[in-house]
């Protein structure tokens, strides 16, 4: 037997034993060589079993905690940058400190009392009883008023009156909720062709954005001649595999830690001399306006004049202060719309200085800071600004206070909508729960004590604490068995009560800023929280917004656990003044929204827990929106893209594999999955940013990166066929210029002729 064969058999035996087989079982597969292999395996596993250190659980827990903190911090940063993945993490920083108190009540007793809870499970119209209050805002009239507001907010926050101390939101599969998702900004835009030699393509794709014509920052931009590609830092863990012809050997060039951050400027059209002609030593998302390339980096925005791409010259710079982070940016009609978030110091909030433009601090005074009249937990200001792309000058701005890291920004051609999610003051519901909902469970003496508490002239915080003390005293007075029963009953009632009031606990405030005049034209609020920018859409003057309510894992009340509140998903239709005029409630009970797409008079919502219901909503009558149809299939879609009037493409996952589905929605009452393609990949970046997706309707193809590779599918005839797979280039994006498809990867750019699908160009970095 050749040595190499023995190596292979040994290897297979090790794999088997690593999967849990015994030595004898592993050797049973190769009886001829068992004698040779046995002593080797005995030596190796003898060694392992002898020295196996059992990590100490204390160290493991400490390391787990450190990891969690680092992940939380990273998520917060990512969210503030708009690249968030999962929103669930919530609660380490400030709430953790209050856990002792706040985890107790919070969840249990929810929200503001005014609201009639709407039962889930059904579609309810009209929206009678929906609380749309809480959204009104006003500007501060003095610094003192601002400080007072923030301190009240702080106190309520710290008291646990807000904030779901013991409640955790489930982790939704988030698409970049804040930053920038179907049409391209300049999809198929016609760029005037140049001279005879034609240095610019006529047909050029833009970034895949949510609203046609409103560009969103991304790592790749093109002007029809050059491609601007911002490499992200990456840490390369392998090499490109090279197989040695005629042998089974492969070479993996020794990889190193590489930092390939930086922007490459690639002369890409015409194709003949494709090459890197310029570089910028910065990385981030890009916006391109004429000859101005703006780089949205971690700590600032830097603009370059790229008229001469070989030597980009810096035009202006905005330094984002440490207290501030970018939430979203858009480019529309020659203006950059920027939304940032600045942490507030509640004792000394002014002046708010989110940034410096070319070294000059930008100050925001109290008079331009708005606040929700109903106090909300406010630890940050959201600042919306209009930035001149030529100079970096901030031409207009408005700010409002809200809770940090909860914002989603959606921009239509006429307005910017900024959302912030907040928890209502739970005190009224705490009283309601104890006094009205616990009749027969709590002894009357306890209820009376709590009732009396209502009239005391003490703070809400103190009242909440008192309620807990009163109930705690009662529980402590019970014998072991009776106490267990009481706790169990209390837990069940809490769960029921929470379920009834889930739409009152968590709400999303919406601030609408008209682009004309850049003033706040309306405010409003709806129950629940939003997934990402696709959760909002403006159509014919109406705003449609999809939210998930009651998405919690349960919580504690006096140390009693209760679980599994029933989440549900709603779609609200709001008029121009952000008053709710129509609603569809109770979609996907126990599930959470994974993807939303509003297209004209229709809305498509994907919720998920075990199967993927795909809902079709008829929104043609704003006052009477209705669930038109639904389809339940395995897996889920996390991005929806209309590929024709009646066909929606869903990109998501099923059984840990990337899944593509085509939904035919010709008959809204009966959506059908007409085609499905499961890829041998675990992950696609489209699931974290819609920018990674590209569609060329002329050639009826779409692109998505998955794993390390780039995939091009044809959807001609409403059937998905794999046209091209480009492997191992660490594919990121694709774009087209005329009939050339450029697949841009961290390793290289590969160009295909979209007619013949021959490779016609390649550029290696």
């Amino acid at each position, binding site marked *: 037997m050749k040595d190499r064969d023995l190596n292979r058999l040994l*290897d297979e035996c090790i794999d088997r034993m690593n999967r849990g087989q015994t030595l004898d079982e592993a050797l049973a597969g190769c009886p001829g060589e068992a004698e040779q292999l046995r002593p080797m395996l005995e030596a190796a596993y003898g*060694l392992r079993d002898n*020295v196996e250190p059992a*990590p100490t659980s204390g160290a493991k827990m400490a390391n787990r905690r450190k990891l969690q903190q680092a992940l939380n911090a990273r998520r917060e940063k990512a969210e503030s940058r708009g690249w968030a993945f999962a929103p669930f993490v919530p609660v380490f920083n400030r709430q953790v400190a209050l856990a002792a108190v706040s*985890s107790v009540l919070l969840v249990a007793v929810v929200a503001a009392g005014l609201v009639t809870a709407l039962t889930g499970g059904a579609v309810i119209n009209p929206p009678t009883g929906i609380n749309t209050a809480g959204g009104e805002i006003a500007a501060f009239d003095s610094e003192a008023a601002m400080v007072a507001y923030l301190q009240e907010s702080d106190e309520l926050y710290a008291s646990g009156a807000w904030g779901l101390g013991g409640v955790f939101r489930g982790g939704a599969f988030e698409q970049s909720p804040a930053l920038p998702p179907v049409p391209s900004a300049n999809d198929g835009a016609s760029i005037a062709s140049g001279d005879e030699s034609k240095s610019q393509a006529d047909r050029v794709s833009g970034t895949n954005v949510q609203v046609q014509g409103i560009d969103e920052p991304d790592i790749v931009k093109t002007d029809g001649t050059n491609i601007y590609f911002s490499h992200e830092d*990456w*840490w390369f863990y392998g090499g490109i595999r090279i197989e040695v012809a005629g042998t089974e050997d492969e070479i993996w*060039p020794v990889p190193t830690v590489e930092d390939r951050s930086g922007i490459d400027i690639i002369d890409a059209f015409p194709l003949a001399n494709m090459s890197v002609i310029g570089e910028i030593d910065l990385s981030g998302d890009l916006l391109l306006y004429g000859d101005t390339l703006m780089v949205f980096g971690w700590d600032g925005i830097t603009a370059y004049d790229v008229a001469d791409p070989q030597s980009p010259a810096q035009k202006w710079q905005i330094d984002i202060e440490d207290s501030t982070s970018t939430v979203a940016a858009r480019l529309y009609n020659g203006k950059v719309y920027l939304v940032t978030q600045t942490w507030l110091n509640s004792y000394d909030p002014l002046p708010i200085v989110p940034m410096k433009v070319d070294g000059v601090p930008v100050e925001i005074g109290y008079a331009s800071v708005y606040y929700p009249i109903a106090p909300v937990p406010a630890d940050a200001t959201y600042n919306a600004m209009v930035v001149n792309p030529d100079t970096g000058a901030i031409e207009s701005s408005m700010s409002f206070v809200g809770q940090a890291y909860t914002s989603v920004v959606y921009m239509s051609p006429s307005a910017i909508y900024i959302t912030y999610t907040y928890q209502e003051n739970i005190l009224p519901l705490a009283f309601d729960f104890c006094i009205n909902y616990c009749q027969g469970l709590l002894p009357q003496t306890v209820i009376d004590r709590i009732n009396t508490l209502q009239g005391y002239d003490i703070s809400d915080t103190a009242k909440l604490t008192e309620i807990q003390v009163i109930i705690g005293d009662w529980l402590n007075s019970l014998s072991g068995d009776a106490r267990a029963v009481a706790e169990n009953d209390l837990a069940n009632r809490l769960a029921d009560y929470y379920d009834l009031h889930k739409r009152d606990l968590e709400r999303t405030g919406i601030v609408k800023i008209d682009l004309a005049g850049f003033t706040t034209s309306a405010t409003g609020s709806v129950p629940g929280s939003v997934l990402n920018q696709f959760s909002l859409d403006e159509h014919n003057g109406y705003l449609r917004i999809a939210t998930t309510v009651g998405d919690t894992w349960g919580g504690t009340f006096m140390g009693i656990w209760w679980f599994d509140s029933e989440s549900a998903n709603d779609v609200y239709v709001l008029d121009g003044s952000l008053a709710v005029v129509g609603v569809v409630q109770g979609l996907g009970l126990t599930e959470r929204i994974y993807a939303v797409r509003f297209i004209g008079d229709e809305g498509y919502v994907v919720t998920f827990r075990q199967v993927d219901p795909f809902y079709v909503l008829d929104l043609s009558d704003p006052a009477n929106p209705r669930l038109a149809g639904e389809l339940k299939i395995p897996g889920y879609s996390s991005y929806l893209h209309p590929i024709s009037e009646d066909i929606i493409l869903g990109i998501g996952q099923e059984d840990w594999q990337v899944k593509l589905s085509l939904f035919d929605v010709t008959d809204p009452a009966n959506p059908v999955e007409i085609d499905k393609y499961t890829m041998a990949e675990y992950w696609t970046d489209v699931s974290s940013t819609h920018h990674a997706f590209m569609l060329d309707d002329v050639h009826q193809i779409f692109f998505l990166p998955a794993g390390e590779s780039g995939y091009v599918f044809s959807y001609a005839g409403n059937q998905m066929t794999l046209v091209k797979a480009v492997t191992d280039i660490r594919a990121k994006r694709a774009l087209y210029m005329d009939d050339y498809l450029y697949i841009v990867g961290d390793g290289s750019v590969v160009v295909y002729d979209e007619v013949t699908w021959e490779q016609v160009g390649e550029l290696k970095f």
Partner: protein
Amino acid sequence: MLQLEMRRTQLKEKHNPAAHSKEDALASLFDGHYESVVRYIFVRIGDRADAEELAGDVFLRAVKSLGSFRGSQEQMRFWVYRVARNIVVDYYRKRSKRHTVPLEPADAVEAQDVEQTAERNLQLEAVAKALDRLTPAQREVIGLRFFAGLTSEEAGRVMGKSSGAVREMQRSAIEKLRGLVRD
């Protein structure tokens, strides 16, 4: 609070079999592979306490580089070992002289029978000596294959070698061990 946090994690896994983000993936990787990472480092450096500390660093460094990680959850697993590998390299770099700490028996403290413990220690000593006679690369292969449980292809990716080379190395490492332990 911690308990509560863990409870949530369990629930989350129950409800969402698929990890939903790189952060989630890394957290669940920790939960599933922390011990293996400790063992891998342990075999490389021979000190349990240091190995545990470094394992913590591995995940923190992974968080820092998470933005640059592109790949599947499966790939993340050996990416983490790559991070671990680099951490070990740094560890040795920081120590001016490479000194090996004797391997300690995993449960020597719990072992009640003194005679048995002594015998075990002798055995371990032999093992430690044997490990010490391996080349760093052989030691690494042993670590990745037997302690971290990676496949030879994955181990190859971590080490920047072909899977054929890994198989070759593991064979020679095992043969050497066999000889040493037997002697």
